[in-house]
């Protein structure tokens, strides 16, 4: 079904999708960590993590987390009583914040590799 998107519904759908991805990441994260009992296994994984491809993956993950956090923040603020008049403004500010923080964060991430 086709239905016109607007700021609110876009914010919602991205919030949802990022949420699902993060939950699955969480499951995988716990699963992987629970299998790291000795230093050798741990260091092996850490070495793999240095792979540039996985760094890109980490950056994407970082973006997803930021997006989810700011979408959640917007909803929570609305629920705490910030006027719904500002819902669109908040979404725009959130998007800008996500972009800015991602660029700053990416700088640090990449510094680890280079």
């Amino acid at each position, binding site marked *: 079904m086709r239905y016109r998107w607007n700021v609110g519904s876009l914010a919602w759908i991205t919030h*949802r999708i990022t*949420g*699902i991805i*993060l*939950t699955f990441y*969480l*499951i995988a994260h*716990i*699963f992987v*960590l*629970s299998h*790291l009992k000795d*230093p050798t296994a*741990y*260091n092996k994984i*850490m070495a793999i993590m240095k792979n540039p491809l996985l760094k890109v993956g980490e950056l994407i993950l970082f973006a997803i*987390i930021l997006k989810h*956090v700011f979408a*959640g*923040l917007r909803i*929570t603020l609305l*629920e705490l009583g910030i006027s719904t008049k500002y819902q669109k403004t908040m979404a725009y500010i959130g998007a800008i914040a996500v972009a800015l923080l991602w660029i700053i*964060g990416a700088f*640090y*991430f990449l510094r*680890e590799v280079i």
Partner: protein
Amino acid sequence: MFSWLLHRVTGIILLFGLMYHFIQMHFLGHDNYSYEAVMQRLADPSWKIFNILFLLSALFHGFYGINGLITEYVKGNSMKNFLKIFTLILPLVLAFFGIKIVIF
């Protein structure tokens, strides 16, 4: 209602937790996640408590969301009930493994 409220509260906890995590792990120097450093940190009881809280919050927050998705998108009552029970057990199992890593 309580779970809804808890979802919001855990959201806030995760926000601060994540901030701490990122600053600690990525922004402050390079060797923060060598095996020794991690183990050393884990020996600290307050770090343990923080980690467990963080873990439980994340699990609750994530699975509350999944539970909502099941409510909204899954058709058919038996399937719905099965998935709901599954998403109740899974985070408990994960919590068990998670706590095990942190404590031992």
